[in-house]
């Protein structure tokens, strides 16, 4: 026998069933709608109501602490703006003044990239014992909170043990867009005679081999874990106690009329960031040049491509004395050296600015 249930009856049955289901829970899906701006859940819209006797919004699971924000009137209802955007992937409850709870969630957007390590600098595999800092470059903006050092391990393979080499600061040193991290090796242990140096020795030991591992616990600013573990291996050689000297750089000049790069061989790897930011090309006639700097060959070579074709004539490469080598030595001073406590009467010896000619 065929049981004929009319569509209307089916509809009633469904509603009846749902009614029972909903009566068992104190929360129903309601008309709360999440509003996005630039991909962030910046507001929640509610039909009707007024800002004065407005609902409260909670994380489901904590119905005691409301989400902080304020309500404003909109066409057709009211809008809640939390003081920071709501986090995707979480569930919330909107409770009206009558005590009715309405659940809503902020969906996780599927389309989020897992960050990758683009490079660790210095990129070479032979580093000085008095290495001062390392930079880590990432493919997307990274976590604004927490200490990335917790996701790095450095192992002294020669001694067969993990070693703490980086200075743990209260707040990590990121660049403006959160894609480059600066790590300092503990300078207290690098500077000779300081107590940490006397008691703990230098962070790196010459003659030893090291492995650094960045684990996938490191997160992007949108909460995605690092795509894969990153490993860097290196050998530690003796300390670098020689100031970088621009007078020793080898310059390859391009022909006039071209846009070919000027290439400078530095003779040693320099700080990947400061090496280009500290240099500026000036023409003797026309002042500073616009163009693009690039770094090559394990930070031992830099190049400059001009925005406009090279003109014949004389040029200077102005070197800002903040330029550092891998040990923090600048053209003017060694990292680990006294600063005169008495101002000397002789003027500071200026940094040599290499000159070149375009023919």
């Amino acid at each position: 026998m065929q049981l004929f249930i009319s569509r209307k009856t089916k509809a009633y049955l469904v509603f009846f069933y749902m009614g029972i289901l909903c009566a068992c829970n104190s929360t129903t899906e309601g008309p709360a709608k999440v509003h996005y701006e630039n991909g962030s859940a910046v507001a929640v819209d509610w039909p009707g109501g007024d800002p004065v006797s407005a609902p409260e919004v909670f994380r489901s699971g904590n119905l005691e602490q409301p989400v902080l924000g304020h309500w404003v009137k909109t066409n057709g209802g009211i809008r809640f703006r939390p003081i920071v955007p709501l986090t995707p992937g979480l569930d919330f409850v909107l409770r009206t003044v009558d005590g009715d709870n309405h659940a809503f969630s902020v969906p996780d957007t599927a389309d989020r990239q897992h960050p990758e390590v683009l490079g660790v600098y210095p990129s070479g595999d032979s580093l000085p014992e008095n290495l001062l800092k390392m930079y880590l470059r990432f493919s997307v903006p990274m976590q604004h909170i927490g200490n990335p050092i917790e996701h790095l391990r450095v192992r002294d393979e020669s001694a067969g043990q993990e070693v703490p080499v980086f200075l743990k600061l209260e707040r990590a040193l990121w660049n403006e867009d959160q894609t480059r991290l600066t790590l300092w090796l503990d300078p207290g242990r690098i500077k000779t005679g300081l107590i940490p140096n006397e008691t703990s020795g230098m962070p790196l030991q010459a003659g030893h081999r090291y492995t650094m591992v960045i684990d996938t616990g490191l997160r992007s600013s949108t909460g995605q874990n690092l795509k894969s573990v990153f490993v860097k291996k290196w050998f530690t050689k003796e300390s670098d106690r020689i100031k970088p000297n621009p007078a020793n750089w080898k310059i390859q000049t391009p022909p006039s009329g071209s846009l070919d790069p000027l290439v400078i061989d530095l003779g040693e790897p320099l700080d990947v960031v400061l090496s280009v930011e500290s240099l500026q090309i000036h023409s003797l006639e026309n002042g500073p040049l616009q163009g693009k700097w690039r770094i090559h060959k394990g930070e031992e070579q830099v190049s400059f491509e001009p925005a406009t074709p090279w003109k014949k004539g004389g040029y200077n490469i102005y070197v800002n004395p903040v330029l550092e080598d891998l040990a923090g030595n600048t053209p003017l001073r060694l990292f680990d050296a006294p600063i005169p406590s008495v101002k000397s009467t002789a003027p500071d010896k200026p940094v040599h600015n290499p000159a070149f000619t375009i023919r």
Partner: protein
Amino acid sequence: MDQLAFGPDGILFIGDTKKAQILALETGDVESRDKGSELNLSGFDDQLAAALGTSADNIEIRDLAVNPISKNIYLAVATLDGNYALLRLRGEKLEPVLMENVSYAATALENPVAADAEDGRGRPLRQWSVSDLMYHDGRVLVSGLSNKEFGSTFRSIPFPFSKEQEYASLEIYHAAHGQYETHAPIKAFTVARIGEMDYLLASYTCTPLVLFPLHELKDGEHRKGRTVAELGSGNSPLDMAWIDKEGKRYFIMSNTNRPLMRIPLDAIATSTTDLTEPVEGFAETRGLDYVSVPMVHVLQLDNLDSEKVVYLQRTSDGDLVLRTRPTQWM
């Protein structure tokens, strides 16, 4: 928002690394109270996260400061994705401090102008991270560290803000024959009043507790400080406060790797220590004696009122607590 410090009349100074500026916010929170509320809140990170519509692993408390007038507690909280919230705890109730509703002034944390700027040399852009902030005697004192060159800056900015900022390059002779100076960044500092003079009491990442007479910090000059205590390596100072206990004034410092330390002010004042010699053997600390107060993992600390401090602490079972404690128990 990295650092908070109160000035006079409910003005809150905010050190903002991302925007490279110091803000002065008129909170209008000037209803005077003698005593702050006693607090013993557990799961405080969960509570803050709920207030910000997120989960505890997505937030970080950057700083805590008590308004000395109202005794309300202010918190700077950062989120994983780079947002910030400035919150006020009134008793046990969390409220937002909305920046749009209050008037404020801002001063940019400029790099000190290089002496050779006129030559047109390129000046690398640095990101200065504000490591500590304090208002003293008409000036906002700021310490910062760079993400590029290894160096530190200490500035003294007159308030109300004008174009004037004084930069002092504070360098110290480390404890070995006075031959070398460091460019170590100041992690935390406070001002000590000793006799008729104010001193900067600064703690560094590699050798802590150095005294500099404040009036000697002149623009652009290197200053030698007196190292009064070497509190051991592998440790970083977090917060400093002054408490009055049984009629005596004490200096309190919280640390990353050591319990809270307490040193009487008169010990600092009368100390003739000037550590210029290396530590013998492997002794870990030298100089001023300190008492370890049995409180570890204190992440934030400030005076609440004349008799209590308020602190944020990570307990051994991973709970984040916000508590008040009478100074007599410190």
